[in-house]
């Protein structure tokens, strides 16, 4: 089977796709295809045409998804699954054209089982819409990415999403109990803990759930999920504290995470460059005094009495480090805004201070607490070098988020503004080189290239074999075995290589 796709699909392929999804749900017009070529992360807009799919299909059921993939296998055409298109590692960006499989029509909310605290939903449902319905039952699905209003359940599975309040409730891998999954050859299987759809821990058979999460569409498509639900929290507490230096804020965030407060949902460390960026452009921080150079925020969710007790403990801990509470207005407003970062219009500055339109990109890694200062220093140096060479890049500072309640490791990100309209091959190459450097710093400090977004974008993807070592060979073997035709999202994670070896 060829690993290459034709630039336009043969009439025979289009005919078969039309037979599966109906004429209304097969889109070949230019706008429909152009709009599904990219995600919100910086994109080589000067090379847009390289990423445009040949056709878009919007199947309405698991059976239709499976039938589309079987058609693709018969004709050797790539399939790229797409949900909300909010991922930041290009999982939904076609590298070989082909069929763009958009799951947004799978937006049903099925059985809500209040006895076991679970529900069944289609891959095209957003967490916000789901929680509007669950709220009527006093229930809550606590998967909370920065794209909360617009990302979809299927994408959360395909990318193994990270949640802002994951230190309390776990991340997508913990909250999705099982899902229907269409394999790269078109068979439909249930993936979960053992065979029961609502089981949270099984020791029966291989533990496959995590294998079929976070594969960025290279191992098939999730179409329907069974989710674990929680009671809707009675109370929220989201304090923001100011510090005069990064080191004190860094020590405070560890103390908060290790305080063992049961309702602790997360803590975030903002570094000095992030504060400088906020003071420049964020209404909450523009009036803050110059001695505010680092920030920490935290969030608690749960029963009101328990949150109140935890709040007192965290407030005392922060005060013991000399923190200044920023007040209810900033604390509550800024925390609420963190559920919806994709709605924020973005601009950056040239070195002369002029405002220019920039898209937001964050390089993320999983880093242990002790390594955060060293990684921070090296990452800023890499981005400073980029900015010194081109006004296309702007350093927007760094965050470090607790990934787990004990603060064992942190989703660490450096936010970089990129002036996309000014990108060309030279500047794009600068960016890709910088991404490799950023990834290597993370690995060099015992971390992982990504805690959240994935690592299959141009640049850092070259470093994945260095990170995974022998496990990368296992990954190649799995891909080759499950997707013999290299149909699913070909080119991602450098996995084409295994098929090229076959040809040789």
């Amino acid at each position, binding site marked *: 089977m060829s690993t290459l796709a034709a630039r336009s699909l043969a009439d025979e392929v289009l005919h078969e796709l039309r037979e599966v999804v109906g004429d209304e749900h097969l889109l070949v017009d230019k706008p429909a295809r152009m709009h599904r070529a990219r995600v919100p992360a910086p994109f080589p807009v000067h090379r847009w045409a390289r990423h445009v799919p040949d056709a878009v299909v919007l199947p309405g059921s698991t059976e239709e998804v499976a039938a589309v993939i079987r058609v693709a296998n018969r004709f050797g055409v790539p399939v790229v699954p797409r949900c909300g298109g909010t991922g930041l590692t290009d999982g939904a960006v076609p590298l070989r054209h082909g069929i763009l499989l958009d799951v947004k029509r799978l937006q049903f909310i099925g059985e809500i089982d209040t006895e076991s605290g679970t529900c069944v939903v289609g891959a095209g449902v957003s967490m*916000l819409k789901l*929680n*509007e319905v669950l*709220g009527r039952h006093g229930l*809550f699905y606590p998967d*909370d990415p920065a794209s909360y209003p617009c990302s979809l359940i299927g994408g959360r599975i395909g990318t193994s999403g990270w949640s802002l309040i994951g230190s309390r409730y776990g991340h997508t891998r913990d909250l999705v109990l099982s899902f229907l999954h269409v394999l790269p050859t078109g068979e439909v299987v249930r993936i979960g803990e053992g065979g029961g759809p609502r089981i949270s821990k099984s020791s029966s058979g291989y533990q496959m759930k995590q294998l079929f999460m976070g594969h960025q569409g290279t191992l098939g498509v999730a179409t329907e999920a069974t989710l674990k639900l929680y009671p*809707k*929290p*009675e*109370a*929220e*507490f*989201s*304090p923001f504290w100011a510090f005069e230096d990064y080191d004190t804020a860094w020590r405070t965030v560890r103390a908060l995470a290790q305080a063992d407060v049961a309702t602790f949902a997360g803590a975030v460390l903002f570094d000095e460059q992030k504060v400088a960026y906020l*003071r*420049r*452009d964020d*209404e909450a921080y*523009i*009036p803050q005094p110059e001695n505010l150079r680092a920030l920490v925020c935290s969030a*608690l*969710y749960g029963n*009101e009495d328990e*949150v*109140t007790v935890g*709040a*007192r403990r965290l*407030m*005392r801990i922060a*005060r013991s480090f000399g923190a200044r*509470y920023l*007040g*209810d207005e900033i*604390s*509550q*407003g800024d925390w*609420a*805004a963190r*559920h*919806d970062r994709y709605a924020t219009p973005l*601009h950056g*500055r*040239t070195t002369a*201070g*002029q*405002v*220019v*339109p920039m898209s937001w990109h964050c390089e993320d890694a999983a880093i242990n607490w002790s390594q955060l200062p060293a990684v921070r220093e090296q990452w800023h140096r890499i981005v400073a070098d980029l900015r010194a060479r081109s006004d296309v890049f702007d350093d927007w500072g760094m965050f470090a988020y607790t990934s787990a309640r004990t603060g064992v490791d942190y989703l660490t990100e450096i936010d970089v503004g990129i002036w996309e309209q000014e990108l060309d091959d030279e500047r794009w190459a600068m960016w890709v080189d910088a991404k490799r450097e950023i990834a290597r710093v993370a690995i060099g400090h015992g971390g992982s290239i990504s805690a959240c977004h994935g690592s299959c974008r141009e640049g850092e993807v070259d470093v994945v074999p260095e990170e995974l070592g022998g496990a990368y060979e296992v990954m190649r073997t799995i891909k080759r075995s499950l997707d013999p035709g290299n149909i699913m999202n070909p080119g991602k994670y450098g996995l084409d290589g295994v098929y090229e070896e076959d040809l040789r």
Partner: protein
Amino acid sequence: MSERPFSYRRGEQVVPPPARRTSEVTVMRFDGIYEVDPRLMRQVPQQPFPNWDTLRIAHGREDHLAWMHRHFARAVISGERILAEIAASDEG
């Protein structure tokens, strides 16, 4: 804004209040609404907004954030209240 309710005077809407400087890079025309200093908007000029639209966008943002709190939890615990309780407890 007009002091006459239920009236609309275009002239009142297209002329914003005078700007006052709030930092090296921002100005403020409406209370609580920061704007980038126009001197820094030469490459991408600020599009004109009628006054009512500027206020609508700012208030809409506040509404959205309040909605988000209600969406995630039934009540929000005040940090200022917690601090006051700690202070009272320490004094006691």
